[in-house]
């Protein structure tokens, strides 16, 4: 990671850091000499990323034009765009997307906190880790969706069922990665701090947490990726609002264009979250702690 664009990175105001990182990365290919060149380079890079999507849409339009399949089998890109405009204008999209986002944020914030706490307990105490490891492995390999019928009986067709299913998928990767991260910090550091009269509080917050951060962030990213899929699946099955429900409901009315519009919304939402939030977060911590893998 020695490209010239990185030099100014650390001085960037922290709340813009993720965005700066992202565009910085895009423009890095063009070796920016001046501001104009950097802007042109970024534009070219964005174009390079978008071009395949344009090509894909063109091929799709061509296929529809040639085969003339009925609209409820494969709608044209323009029909999907119209459906998108329609759900947006009626306010359905905003409400349902809002539901989905609210759920993932709620589940992610609480689930990550639980996972990190559990990971720390297991990372610090070998006995607890050894005891909890086998059942946790079993439950992890069992998807949250398999529990959905039971959650439905316990919590009904409600928000609670969905949130619990997302939690279930999200907590394990976070907990296991945190545990791994805590364990990678050499014990010597702990002993050193203790010998110097440090408290456990200091060890946790000033030694273990910083040391484990790259792993924790990796776990969070993986956990949210799993949780997002579980969320969509749970919304399809439970059916109380959200983008998953939107596309599943559209299927019963054969509104194929609306299904694809909803899928696009789901994909774009995830892509943006990953590209602008999770990945820069991971890269920033990995880079900061010198764990560059490339």
């Amino acid at each position, binding site marked *: 990671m020695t490209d010239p664009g990185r030099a100014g990175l650390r001085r960037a105001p922290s709340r813009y850091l993720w965005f700066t990182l992202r565009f910085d990365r895009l423009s890095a290919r063009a070796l920016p000499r001046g501001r104009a060149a950097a802007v042109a380079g970024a534009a070219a890079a964005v174009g390079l990323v978008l071009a395949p*999507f344009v090509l894909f849409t063109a091929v799709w339009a061509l296929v529809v034009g040639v085969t003339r399949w009925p609209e409820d089998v494969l709608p044209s890109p323009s029909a999907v765009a119209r459906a998108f405009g329609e759900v947006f204008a009626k306010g359905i999209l905003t409400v349902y997307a809002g539901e989905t986002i609210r759920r993932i944020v709620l589940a992610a914030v609480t689930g990550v906190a639980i996972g990190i706490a559990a990971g720390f307990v297991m990372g610090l105490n070998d006995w607890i880790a050894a005891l909890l490891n086998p*059942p946790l492995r079993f439950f992890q390999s069992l998807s949250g*969706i398999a529990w959905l019928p*039971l959650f439905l009986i316990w919590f009904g067709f409600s928000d609670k069922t969905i949130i619990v299913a997302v939690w279930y998928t999200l907590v394990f990767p976070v907990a296991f990665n945190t545990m791994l991260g805590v364990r990678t910090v050499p014990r010597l550091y702990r002993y050193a701090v203790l010998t110097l009269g440090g408290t456990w509080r200091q060890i946790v917050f000033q030694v273990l947490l910083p040391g484990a951060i790259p792993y924790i962030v990796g776990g969070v990213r993986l956990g949210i990726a799993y949780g997002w*899929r579980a969320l969509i699946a749970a919304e*399809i099955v439970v059916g109380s609002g959200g983008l998953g429900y939107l596309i599943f409901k559209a299927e019963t009315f054969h509104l194929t264009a609306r299904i694809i519009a909803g*899928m696009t919304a789901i*994909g774009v939402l995830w*892509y943006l979250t990953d590209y602008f939030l999770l990945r820069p977060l991971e890269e920033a911590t*990995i880079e900061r702690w010198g764990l560059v893998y490339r």
Partner: protein
Amino acid sequence: MGTGLPVAAPRAERPAASRPRRIVGAAMALGRGAVSFGALFAVWYALTAHGWVRPMALASPAAVASVLVDGVRDRTLLGHLGVSLSRLVISMVVAGAAGIVLGVLVGISRHLALIVEPLAGFFNALSGIVWLPLAITWFGLTWKTVLFVIGNAIFFTVFFNTLVGVRGVPRLYEQAILTLGASRWRTLRDVLLPGALPGIVAGIRLGLGFGWRALIAAELVAVTQGLGFMIFSAANYLRTDIILAGILVIGGVAVAMDSLILVPIERATVVRWGLYH
């Protein structure tokens, strides 16, 4: 790292212990597992045996065991299991092969990568269950819908892991064999494919995990056979014994796939050749 996709991290090797120590270690691990699962079982038993929880909310271990035994005896459970497994195997063979082929192609061609990678990244974010409504419009409530959804989940996982595997092969090896006069095909066969094997095996392993999850989710909604259907239809009648039996089987299959099939494959190929880099 850094691809943003479910790619397995390389594992550190432990130094080999002597035989008696290994046996003691294995026994200890088994003992710890027995303790923790035993505690879990005791809690479950206590909750149900004393009537603290109604059977409608949580069936007793005995009820679940009898569902399992009956299901095996009258073949219903075995039937659902067989249907689910065959769906997984078929989609693994088709989608896994496609993922490996495309992963290798994109790994060796920079031009192809420019087009395919952004698209694949987007569709990976969309993979699996999100396709269910569209798959239902295309294929109806049939096994084809389930195969499409599982295949979708498997394909992208295998594809990206293969890609990372191919890219992880140092260019120097490729150039060395080319300098020695090897053909492009020999580079592929003798350098790139073996070098990418850890990635490919990791992809198949993760893909089976993802595929199994997607399979259960798809079966909940789309079909009238299979383990997912079994537990979801049991929920309508509040039969928590059937649900829990199904959950145990689903989890058991996931664990068995990993420890009985994939770990030995890995040991026989990747680990033996010392290919973890």
